[in-house]
């Protein structure tokens, strides 16, 4: 699903060159839920950028659904970002002059999806994150936790195979951070969306299925949690 093959990413050159990712290899299976931890500057965000094709690797290959991202032409790369990969950021990045539903619909509008379908899919996505009742609100009238849920709906509206989340709880208090993580876990559970999440918080990392620790761009440690199926029996969260 997502495969890193000896990926190295160097920014800059000569004496100012910085190796953000250093010979990194791993494979994330479809429907998996991983967290990426590590100190600031350890290359976590770059790992996400490379998957979304926002920047090419210096060497090695990043494969998404079996295809080398760096070898995609610009149309294919745009399609990857518009239809396959949803992105959630720490800072929500909602457009302040649009309502929640207009923000959520934006990726579809940019992709020339007919308005009728946009409306339907926006409602579905907002319902998934339990924000249907706030559809007409502008971001400034929403709490941080609500804004992040709208941002997650915007990532989900394209029915992505993969969600990349870069510190999605970084700007939230503990309760809202936990709610966002519960939501992520449930989405992974119910929709089988593959999720790769960057976090500093061990409590939140422990809510995923596997943790990778990066130090200076290379893999310091990988651990899987002892799985307890009951844990993910989805009777809460999104269940109605």
């Amino acid at each position, binding site marked *: 699903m997502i495969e890193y093959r000896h990926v190295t990413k160097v920014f800059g050159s000569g004496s100012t060159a910085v190796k953000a990712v250093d010979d990194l290899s791993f494979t994330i299976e479809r429907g998996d839920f991983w967290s990426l931890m590590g100190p600031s500057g350890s290359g976590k965000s770059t790992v996400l950028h490379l998957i979304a094709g926002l920047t090419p690797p210096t060497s090695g290959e990043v494969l998404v659904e079996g295809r080398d991202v760096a070898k995609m032409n610009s149309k294919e790369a745009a399609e990857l970002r518009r239809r396959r990969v949803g992105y959630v950021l720490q800072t929500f990045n909602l457009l302040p002059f649009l309502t929640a539903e207009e923000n959520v619909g934006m990726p579809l509008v940019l992709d020339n999806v007919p308005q009728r379908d946009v409306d339907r899919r926006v409602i579905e996505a907002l319902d998934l994150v339990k924000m249907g009742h706030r559809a007409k609100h502008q971001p400034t009238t929403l709490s941080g936790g609500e804004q992040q849920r709208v941002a997650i709906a915007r990532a989900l509206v394209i029915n992505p195979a993969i969600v990349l989340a870069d510190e999605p709880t970084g700007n939230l208090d503990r309760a809202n951070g936990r709610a966002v993580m*519960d939501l992520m876990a449930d989405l992974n559970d119910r929709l089988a969306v593959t999720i790769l999440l960057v976090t500093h918080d*061990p*409590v939140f*990392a*422990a*809510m995923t299925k596997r*943790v990778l620790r990066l*130090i*200076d761009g*290379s*893999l*310091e*440690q990988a*651990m899987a*949690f*002892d799985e*307890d199926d*009951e*844990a993910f029996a989805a*009777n*809460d969260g999104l269940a109605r």
Partner: protein
Amino acid sequence: MRHSHGVQHAVLGVVARNPEGIHGYAVRRQGERLLGHFWRLNFGEVYRILDRLSADRLIEQVADGGESARKVYRITTRGQQSLDDYVLSPQTDAPRPLRQELAVKLLFASPEHLPELLRLVERQRDAYMQELHKLGTERRKMRRAPFDAFVTHLLIDGAELSARAELTWLDEVAKRLQDRYGVAGSA
């Protein structure tokens, strides 16, 4: 020094630092100097542990022949082996604070053993992450429990906070060890 295993090896480690031999009183003094207020053994306890270590042939009495009645001990080969084994042995899997035990190991490990010690730190980090994962599972279960799980939630919060504190500390230990000894990552 709650754990008898760590305590015994702390005493053994102090004896090991004194190849010419050391008596019980000095063991306590040196222990206090090395471990500060984490060293909580009184004289009686130190003497009891020395007797036990001696019975186990991990230390032996130095044949002194002097007029002092005080027993002077030094470590045996077997004792040194036991200390080395202990210093490099993995933690028991139950996630409990590693601080004091790790301090004992760090004090008596030689610098070339640091990569192994870093691996111990990592294993301990794994144990706490597993613990956090279990707590998360428990929290989800409690949320749909058919009863008021208020107190359980408080306990889960508390357990999470202490696991988080341990993890933060372990990160700090690993970083400071690497800064100090320049050892590379130990993955």
